[in-house]
């Protein structure tokens, strides 16, 4: 089929212009400057002084740096794996079952409540989590007492063994609303006739889920997984608000480490090295995702 005027690829470049200009100024240039700073000793006011690979050498032998990346893996579990799976399940239940059997209003209301943690500023949420996690009279320990499990009481945020798991639970709570909303919007794209045909064929809810739902909303699943992964690698605010990376270094993450170097020690050069390393990791991971997504899309087209 000969491409008509609307389908020639070159004419679309005009639409990319604003985006490209903005991204160069706000992202590419600062990225370059940040990389430059990582090779300097810079306190933020007097001009940076070139020191070559010194920051980088220090970084590779810095135990705190490696610990922070280990903790990132925990963040990925808490912000990507669990929310995506759980979110898919909840969105499907709400849209498919609740929406159809109990009415759209009920489904909408429940969706809104799941999204609320995303609306609460993390500084505020941290105060509440603090109340719940208090060792002496916090809500969680009080509930454990009431149901007779007082042996399970812990110092949730103050014990190095429990701080990270506690933060992970908090992150799941914060993140869950995002996949639920995205997936529910995506599910609206599924042609209801497909479901009806499948139901007539005798497929139960689980079969329909796997064969139809997951297949149609694959783009959104990829997007949610990738953006949550990037967010998990970059995570800063919850750690800052809840534990400041402690107790010890049990909850420190790369972003918090670079923040403390930038703004507390004002060692901008070293902080820049940490954040550049983090950026490299994020870019690498994202590339893997995008290539996988591209490959899956190409398979789809060939069908």
């Amino acid at each position, binding site marked *: 089929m000969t491409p008509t005027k*609307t389908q020639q690829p070159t004419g679309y470049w005009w639409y990319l212009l604003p985006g490209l200009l903005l991204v160069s100024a706000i*992202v590419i240039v600062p990225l370059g400057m940040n990389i430059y700073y990582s090779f300097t000793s810079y306190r933020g006011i007097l001009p940076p002084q070139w020191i070559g690979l010194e920051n980088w050498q220090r970084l590779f032998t810095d135990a705190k740096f490696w610990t922070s990346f280990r903790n990132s893996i925990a963040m990925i579990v808490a912000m990507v794996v669990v929310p995506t799976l759980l979110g898919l399940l909840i969105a499907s239940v709400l849209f498919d*079952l609740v929406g159809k059997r109990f009415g759209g209003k009920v489904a909408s209301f429940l969706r809104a*409540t799941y999204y609320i943690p995303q609306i609460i500023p993390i500084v505020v949420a941290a*105060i509440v989590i603090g109340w719940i996690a208090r060792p002496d009279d916090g809500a969680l320990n009080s509930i454990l007492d009431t149901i007779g499990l007082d042996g399970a009481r812990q110092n949730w945020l103050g014990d190095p063994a429990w701080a990270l798991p506690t933060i992970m639970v908090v992150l799941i709570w914060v993140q869950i609303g995002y996949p639920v909303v995205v997936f529910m*919007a995506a599910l609206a794209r599924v042609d209801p006739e497909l479901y009806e045909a499948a139901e007539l064929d005798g497929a139960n809810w689980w079969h329909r889920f796997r064969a139809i739902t997951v297949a149609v909303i694959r783009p959104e699943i990829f997007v949610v997984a990738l953006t949550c992964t990037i967010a998990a690698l970059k995570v800063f605010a919850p750690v800052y608000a809840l534990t400041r990376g402690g107790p010890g270094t049990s909850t420190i993450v790369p972003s918090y480490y670079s923040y403390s170097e930038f*703004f507390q020690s004002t060692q901008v050069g070293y902080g820049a090295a940490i954040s550049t390393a983090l950026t490299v990791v994020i870019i690498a991971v994202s590339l893997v995702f995008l290539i996988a997504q591209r490959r899956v899309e190409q398979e789809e087209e060939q069908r």
Partner: protein
Amino acid sequence: MRSSRKRKALDWVLLSLAVLGALVVVAPLLLIVLNSFKSPDDYNQGGPLQLPSHLYFDGLARFWEASDFPKKLWNSIFISAMVAVLGVLVSLFNAYALGIGRARGRLPLLVVFLLANMLPQEALLYPLYNMSKAVGLYDSQWSVIIIFTVIQSAFGTYLLTSVYSGFPRELLEAAAIDGAGRWRTLWQVVVPVSWQTLSVLLIFFFIWTWNEFLIPTTFLVSNDKQTVPLAVAALQGEKLMDVTTTSASALLGLIPTLVFFLIFQRTLTRGVTAGAIK
């Protein structure tokens, strides 16, 4: 045509699980509400979990006055709304070119746009600070708006491009046959069909921008330009913290976004009917 209205037992089980999950998720919000109307005495004596003995509005009133809350509210609304709209526009244009136009070099370009999302915010602060001083945009809301437009549109570009890659070719061809150029096709075909996704983006961008702290703190120096989260944070003194007033301010801070979300939610439920395709 709705599915049979027969509700099996399993349906009720699933519903109760969903409701239970929702309750657990929303419990902390209830705690905030509880403590916002509590006097400091009640908090000291009863702790955060008890009901207040009487409704106490002083904390709310004092915060409203002291922070000039209406101004902060307006600032937040202005900045978040501008970012939402501009961010969606930029994402739309980018995704139109990449997803539908299939411009050459799609993958590298996508990565370039996504970089805005991949960079940790702390890394951007010093370079952008130096740049904004040079162009006179330091202590201006526009610097915040521009920065967040770029950051949010990274996500928007990615999501929309993914969705537009699977855009029904028949619709585009039909428009081409009708003699529509790229611009008209965009506004008359693509946007209406993907309105669902665009709305989701608007909501996300608004809320995400509203709750931001680090970049607004850096670039909004004068008090009268600052946003609601900054006003809430200002309450936290270095050593003392007034928990009930902080709670009250938090409540005030999240009501606008909650309302916004609830309003837009109805748009989401109207859904895209199969009729758009015909």
